[in-house]
């Protein structure tokens, strides 16, 4: 690949063999770059090509692929995002999980479009990227440190200030191979799904970091890029839904909090009810009006989304935490019966420090509380903890025990909600909220939001992977009737690829939630290519098909494409009372598979589907 012919790329893929502690570099030709682009595209390519079905999630042969994209480090908003891909440990299938912040920009300034880790180090190490080179450094002194301590210590020992370096790493949960450990960095950002932090811990890789340095990203047509960037921001700000996130984060305003209850999408007490009068205090408007809020924007982001909050009253006075996303307000507020926003902030931050993914932890906790409240679990089972609704002290203690694998109960819970439910028995399996594939959903009551439930269950990455939630887009069909089975499954199928394309770019989806043509305009300006929206969506559809093929080969069965009984239960109150998704599930899958060009019985993409995407090799593997 020549830097002079293609814009947007640093030009190198870094290969790190942790077993031998050897580092090498490679390049990709332009045809391969056009085919996979970056981010999740690179993840799909390298996972399929290099991780065979014999490889387990904690084998040295698993890959941890950290990838930016061609827009990473440019003027496009939020272009500091990374996609991290691997064979994950909750599903034993693929994962691709994104984190915002600065790494996606800084690693490119340092000279790298992606880093691919393989092997297992003999000692704890971290990777340091800077000025066109990379080195592995000893990390033994960082073992046991939480994610913020890790970040601060690495910056201090390498001589960088807060914004001079991006650091992502694992906490005690990842070190102890908790199956819902995540990778956390830049104080406020997480790549959390499918146990990606445990994959990193299994490699004895504590962190990776990149210096801001003096590098820059080549842009083919700056004259076209600037108006394209402005058009994207104008699109975001002109749509009230996207503007609301730009202004108030995903936690939103008081009205947004209450409106989630009115719309039946707030998860309350393990789905036992949908009613939660305290919704308005579990919002960003509450935290910003009551405490000190300091903006903490990502690379090139103009929004007022991310903040750091210093609590100024009560028992946590003086504590600075990251402002939670909506999903963490939900997980540590309504889902577990907590009505104190300060406690929700502290719990959310504790997860970050320990390195635990919050959605899985939240649904695990709500299941346990229901079992305890019903007397199925007792203090003897919980090693003395009273797991009752709103008992946040007990929750904090349990989360720490899980991260450090202390005690038999916590050790079991570290296997994730699905495995824990199976071990705890039928009552747990009846009330647990999870996809049968092995992971919890994100923090909503999806009985009022079928599209995300269906997307999550049919996804191949351990979390949802599709759908479009922006202003009307002529190139990507929206969803009009949220409880129409055919419309929901059609929407997920027809929009497949759009989200994956965004996740291949190195950008934050909250900054690209506009008609696809506007994003493609910026992409073409940076790269010098001439993509159409169809070609862009095909990049994403290709990644989705490659990840599906990976999962099929690794034994993730289509029989598992169902929600757990509680997840698909019928609400007993609230606006979605009596509305049930379960009777429609099979017909939704039938429709989805037909539209995706996949075999309903085996889950395999048909040969013609794969060949239309240039995946002849995958067709030959799956259909021999």
């Amino acid at each position, binding site marked *: 690949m020549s830097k002079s012919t293609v814009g947007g790329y640093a030009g190198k893929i870094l290969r790190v063999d942790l077993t031998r502690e050897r580092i090498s570099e490679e390049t990709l030709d332009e045809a391969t770059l056009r085919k996979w682009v970056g981010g999740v595209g690179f993840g799909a390519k390298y996972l399929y090509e290099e991780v065979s079905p014999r490889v387990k999630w904690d084998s040295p042969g698993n890959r941890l692929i950290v990838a930016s994209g061609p827009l990473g480090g440019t003027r496009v908003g939020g272009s500091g995002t990374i996609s991290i891909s691997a064979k994950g440990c909750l599903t034993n299938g693929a994962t691709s999980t994104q984190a915002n912040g600065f790494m996606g920009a800084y690693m490119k300034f340092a000279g790298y479009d992606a880093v691919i880790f393989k092997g297992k180090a003999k000692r704890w190490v971290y990777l340091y990227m800077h000025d066109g080179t990379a080195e592995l450094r000893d990390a033994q002194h960082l073992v046991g440190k939480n994610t913020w301590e890790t970040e601060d210590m690495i910056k201090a020992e390498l001589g960088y200030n807060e914004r001079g370096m991006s650091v992502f790493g694992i906490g005690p949960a990842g070190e102890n191979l908790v199956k819902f450990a995540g990778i956390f960095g830049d104080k406020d950002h997480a790549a959390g799904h499918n146990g990606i932090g445990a994959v990193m811990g299994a490699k004895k890789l504590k962190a990776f970091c990149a210096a801001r340095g003096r590098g820059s990203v080549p842009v083919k047509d700056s004259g076209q890029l600037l108006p394209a960037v402005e058009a994207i921001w104008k699109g975001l700000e002109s749509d*009230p839904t996207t503007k609301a996130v730009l202004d108030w984060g995903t936690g939103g305003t008081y009205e947004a909090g209450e*409106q989630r209850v009115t*719309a039946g999408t707030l998860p309350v007490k393990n789905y036992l009810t949908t009613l939660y009068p305290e919704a308005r205090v579990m919002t960003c408007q509450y935290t910003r009006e009551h405490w000190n809020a300091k903006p903490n924007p990502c690379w090139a982001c103009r929004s007022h989304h991310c903040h750091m909050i210093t609590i100024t009253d009560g028992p946590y006075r003086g504590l600075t935490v990251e402002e939670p996303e909506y*999903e963490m307000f939900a997980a540590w507020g309504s889902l577990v019966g907590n009505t104190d926003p300060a406690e929700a902030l502290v719990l959310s931050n504790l997860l970050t420090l320990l390195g635990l993914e919050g959605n899985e932890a939240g649904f695990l906790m709500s299941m346990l509380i229901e079992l305890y409240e019903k007397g199925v679990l007792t203090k003897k089972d919980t090693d003395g903890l009273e797991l009752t609704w709103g008992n946040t002290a007990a929750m904090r203690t349990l989360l720490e025990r899980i991260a450090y694998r202390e005690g038999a109960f916590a050790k079991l819970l570290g296997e994730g909600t699905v495995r824990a439910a199976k071990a705890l028995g039928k009552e747990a399996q009846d009330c647990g909220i999870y996809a049968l594939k092995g992971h919890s959903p994100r923090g909503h009551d999806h009985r009022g939001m079928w599209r995300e439930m269906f997307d999550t269950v049919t996804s191949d990455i351990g979390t949802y992977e599709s759908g479009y939630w922006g202003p009307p887009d002529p190139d990507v069909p929206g969803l009009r009737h949220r409880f129409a089975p055919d419309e929901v499954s059609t929407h997920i199928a027809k929009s497949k690829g759009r989200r994956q394309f965004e996740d291949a770019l190195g950008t934050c989806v909250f900054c690209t939630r506009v008609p696809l043509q506007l994003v493609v305009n910026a992409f073409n300006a940076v790269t010098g290519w001439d993509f159409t929206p169809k070609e862009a969506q095909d990049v994403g559809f290709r990644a989705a098909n490659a990840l599906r093929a990976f999962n099929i080969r690794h034994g993730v069965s289509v029989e598992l494409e169902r929600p757990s009984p509680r997840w698909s239960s019928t609400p007993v109150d609230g*606006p979605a009372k009596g509305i049930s998704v379960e009777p429609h599930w099979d017909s939704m899958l039938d429709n989805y598979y037909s539209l995706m060009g996949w075999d309903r019985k085996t889950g395999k993409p048909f040969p013609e589907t794969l060949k239309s995407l240039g995946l002849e090799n995958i067709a030959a593997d799956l259909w021999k």
Partner: protein
Amino acid sequence: MSTGKVRVEIRPWLSDGLSPNGSGAVVLEEQIEKGATVSGLLTRLAAEHKALGKVLFEPDGRQLNGEVCIVVDGRLLQLPGELDKGLKDGTTITLLPVIDGG
């Protein structure tokens, strides 16, 4: 001839173009006639309040925007055909935007 009255609560930010101070929920009390439906009422309101029409309907002005939640007497209304169900005196319709997560 009016056969009743329906209360329409329009929540932020759908209400932004209607509220006198630019923000906050807006409540309309609307007279209805025999045979009035949800879709008919919303079409009428969109014609009377252009700002509301822009957020309720797709650019073609015919299809309701899928990013709007419609709640009738506390129940979500989003199945095809339900929009053409009849309204009765005393009904409350709440319009609110779809809010996703993150």
